[in-house]
């Protein structure tokens, strides 16, 4: 989407080549401003919903005209308590901060996968299925293989999980490239396959915890658990996620493959005419996308919990909604690796803080989902944000002459 806009806005500035880098800088600034104000708007709308839905505060609004102080005071109390506890839960202490990194890890990994596919013009809805495959087989290697040292076992778990994600994504790319099957439909179907496979396997003795007849997997070996800083939730997975950010940036910006991916994303026909093998790029992109989502799944079954100090056991909802949250992360991050990193950290912080918010302020965790959805909605509709906050539009026009003055 941002590509399209760049093309739209480029022509008027073209006749002054020397201002071009400044113009793109201002464009970037503007997009950052829209994102920032989208966040602010989302939190404002979230506050309004919070007040309307809170019965105690709502009651006070009932007699607003008789005693306005009550309603305003209670609303302020509610809003500030909610957001303060949200902040405390995500950045209020060292443990809270590491919880944020832990929550952000799968979002960043899967978000990168989705973002990469976006850049090639592919809409990967299948992050969920790819993550589930990564989780199933990563966990399987994690609890069946025994006696290996950590530096052999954990990489093996990661390798197998990522490989299964790669296959699950690659199949979609292959079907798209060879038969023209639409990747949206195919990935959704592949999600179902993965979910049902997980349900099926969890009823087989090989996947069930010893002595349990519930659908829950055994605890993975300690040698298949991500090492962590003691007493915190900061584990190796987060570093791997940061590494993945660098890797995806490198692929996109510094390799021929990256150039091809972007060319196919901008215009597959033109890319084909320029001699790019579009089928191959589609398959490879979907495979890498699936690999990253698969890694998010591996993270879900290898990241240690604070109180148990072992990872969550394999179970039906093991990956939560990673695959779908990742789409919002990729959208908010504008499909740029660094953007995905920041968006992942933001949503991770919201998820981490939601817990404290629920417990201290009694605000339902749905508020966090609502805020996330609103952020993405506003980011995806910049025109609406500018309509509500017209000064954003003004700054853009007033900024264009300024760089000239500075440049001169």
């Amino acid at each position: 989407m941002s590509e399209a806009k760049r093309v739209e806005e480029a022509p008027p500035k073209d006749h002054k080549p020397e201002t071009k880098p400044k113009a793109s800088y201002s464009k970037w600034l503007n997009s950052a401003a829209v994102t920032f104000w989208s966040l602010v708007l989302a939190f404002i709308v979230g506050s309004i919903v919070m007040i309307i839905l809170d019965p105690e505060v709502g009651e006070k609004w009932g007699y607003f005209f008789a005693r306005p102080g009550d309603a305003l005071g209670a609303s302020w109390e509610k809003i500030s308590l909610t957001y303060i506890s949200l902040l405390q839960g995500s950045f209020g202490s060292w443990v809270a901060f590491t919880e944020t990194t832990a929550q952000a890890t799968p979002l960043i990994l899967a978000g990168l996968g989705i973002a990469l596919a976006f850049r090639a013009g592919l809409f990967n809805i299948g992050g969920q299925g790819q993550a589930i495959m990564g989780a199933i087989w990563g966990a399987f290697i994690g609890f069946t293989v025994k006696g290996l040292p950590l530096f052999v076992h954990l990489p093996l778990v990661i390798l197998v999980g990522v490989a299964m994600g790669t296959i699950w994504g690659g199949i979609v790319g292959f079907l798209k490239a060879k038969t023209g099957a639409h990747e949206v439909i195919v990935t959704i179907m592949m999600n179902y396959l993965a979910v049902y496979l997980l349900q099926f396997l969890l009823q087989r003795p090989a996947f069930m915890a010893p002595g349990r007849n519930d659908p829950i997997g055994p605890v993975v070996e300690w040698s298949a658990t991500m090492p962590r800083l003691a007493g915190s939730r900061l584990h190796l997975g987060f570093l791997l996620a940061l590494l993945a950010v660098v890797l995806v940036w490198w692929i996109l910006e510094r390799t021929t493959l990256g150039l091809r991916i972007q060319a196919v994303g901008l215009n597959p026909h033109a890319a084909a005419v320029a001699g790019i093998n579009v089928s191959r790029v589609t398959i490879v992109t979907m495979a890498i996308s699936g690999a990253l989502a698969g890694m998010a799944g591996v993270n879900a079954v290898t990241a240690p919990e604070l109180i148990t100090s072992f990872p969550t056991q394999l179970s039906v909802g093991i990956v939560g909604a990673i695959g779908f949250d990742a789409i919002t992360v990729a959208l908010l991050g504008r499909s740029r690796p660094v953007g995905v990193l920041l968006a992942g950290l933001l949503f991770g912080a919201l998820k981490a803080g939601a817990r404290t918010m629920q417990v201290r302020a009694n605000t339902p965790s749905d508020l966090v989902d609502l805020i996330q959805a609103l952020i993405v909605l506003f980011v995806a509709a910049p025109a609406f944000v500018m309509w509500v906050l017209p000064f954003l539009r003004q700054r853009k026009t007033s900024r264009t002459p300024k760089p000239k003055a500075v440049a001169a």
Partner: protein
Amino acid sequence: MKKSLMRVGALAAASLLALSACAEPPAENTAAPTNDASATAGESSAPAETESEATNADFKACMVSDFGGFDDKSFNETSYNGLLRAEEELGIEVNEIESNAESEYAGNIQSMIDEGCNIIVTVGFALANATEAAAKQNPDVDFAIVDFNSFEGVDNAKGLLFNAAQPAFLAGYTAAAMTETGVVGTFGGAKYPTVTIFMDGFDQGVKYHNETKGTDVQLLGWSEEAQDGQFIGGNDPFGDIPGGKNTASTLISQGADIIMPVAGPAGQGALQAAQESGGKVNAIWVDTDGYESASEFGSVIITSVAKGMDVAVFEAIEASMNDEFTSEEYIGTLENEGVALAPFHDFEDDLPEGLTAELDDLKAKIISGEIEITSPSQP
């Protein structure tokens, strides 16, 4: 610019007006504002108003749901009702947190420990390991877990289990006695032991009727011997109401005229199917008395297999508050009324001659052990 700001302002003003009906404020002397403010801030400095609740206000009971959430019309909700009842009757402070995914359980329990809860009730088998670890690390806090056994060597965690097969046996017997087509059906949300235990008991009840009364009633959807049957399945097996309706319709098309869905809220699909049959098909509800919890379907609910999770949770909290908490497992049975067959309500007059007496007799026989229920899922 100003114009659109005006628009936003107008919108805000309009919504403000819409919200603020001209209700009367409470009288000043009740000190309601200060009380509410301090309640939201979580402070315990209660003003004058709380005579009745003053005694136990420093005791805090907390609950962590599984990913179904507290509004699942099923076991999370029923357990939560126990917590609410404790708040009301014991005057204690309560707190609760909903989980949305498996990976949140451990952290959610931790957040309750951090809040200084005296007893933490966790709902569902999936929280077992996290509960056990938390109990070991926090010997001063009591724990109770719904639908799971007590942990070996942990003396501050109590398992709350329910032998739902016993009332389900009575339900199966009732269904066999009341069917007109000679076919009854059951289905589950997903194949969990806490689900199949109902179906086992139901199956055995039908068979017992066949043996003692010489009938040949057939059960569709579950076989106790094979331990397999019909399930909704899918992403959201306990929330998929259309899925429940489809499954029920399949059973109805094969001739079943009494259906017992064991699928939480998704079971409402079966109630819809029954209601649309125009009186031909009826249902038996589970977990709670469906005549009350799903009252819009009261006319098709013959009876319910009720599981008293609210009572068990309440009792665990009360015991913890009075320092009488033990790690001894609670097992709800017909004998201690932790499980029961709910009243027949609208069907009271349609019951076959002598059925109530027979059921009382069966209940006594189950309690005495004369009838042995063989479900492998029993606690």
